[in-house]
């Protein structure tokens, strides 16, 4: 046997579940200190002219779409599947999670082109999670649907992986 330098896969999974705290942070109560409830997440759409990227820290109305049927802040995201952590070798692993349902904006009119969605934690001060881009779209009295990739080690929407 030999030891192998690596990040523990279980740790990555626990990160997705808020299981470690290396520094101080201000949190909204998750009800219980020992069995905290899951946070809620939302998805907001951003104009093609906006600057939404890795530097985002919180949800912002700046650059967000607006139009009939769309409420600022976007829609709730269903996270029905708990994060999974899987080892692929002694040195590699992946922790991942994907919303369990499509994100749908029903009967909206979004006349100005948009091409990005921000996922954010609406429980913890609207803190930013991830930005996903797609081809520029407009919607007229219609429905915009974002369907999620399969929740696997290689395609899950949000993945933490060892190098």
């Amino acid at each position, binding site marked *: 046997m030999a030891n192998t*330098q690596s990040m523990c896969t279980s740790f990555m999974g626990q990160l997705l579940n808020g299981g470690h705290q290396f520094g101080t942070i201000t949190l909204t109560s998750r009800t219980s200190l020992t069995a905290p409830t899951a946070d809620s997440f939302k998805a907001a759409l951003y104009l093609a002219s906006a600057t939404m990227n890795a530097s985002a820290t919180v949800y912002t109305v700046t650059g967000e779409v607006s139009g009939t049927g769309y409420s600022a802040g976007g829609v709730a995201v269903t996270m029905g599947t708990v994060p999974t952590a899987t080892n692929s070798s002694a040195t590699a692993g992946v922790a991942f999670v994907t919303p369990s349902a499509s994100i749908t904006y029903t009967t909206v009119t979004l006349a100005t082109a948009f091409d990005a969605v921000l996922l954010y934690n609406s429980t913890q001060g609207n803190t930013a999670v991830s930005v996903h881009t797609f*081809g520029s779209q407009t919607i007229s009295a219609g429905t*915009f649907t974002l369907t999620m*990739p399969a929740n696997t080690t290689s395609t899950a929407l949000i993945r*933490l992986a*060892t190098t």
Partner: protein
Amino acid sequence: MALVTTTKGEMDETLLEKKEGSVDNDNEYTTWVEYWLEGELVHRSAHVQLKKSVGLKVEAASFG
């Protein structure tokens, strides 16, 4: 009779010109449908299937 939600209210689909399209690349598979009335776009819906995840690489650093 199929009804379509449009900018002018519910309309019979047979009164409208329907256009459909799709985009398939490494990032997404997108389909869209449009309904036009006398040259005016009165309905557009789109469905984006995301293909790519956003990943974060993590590493346990060496000493020294």
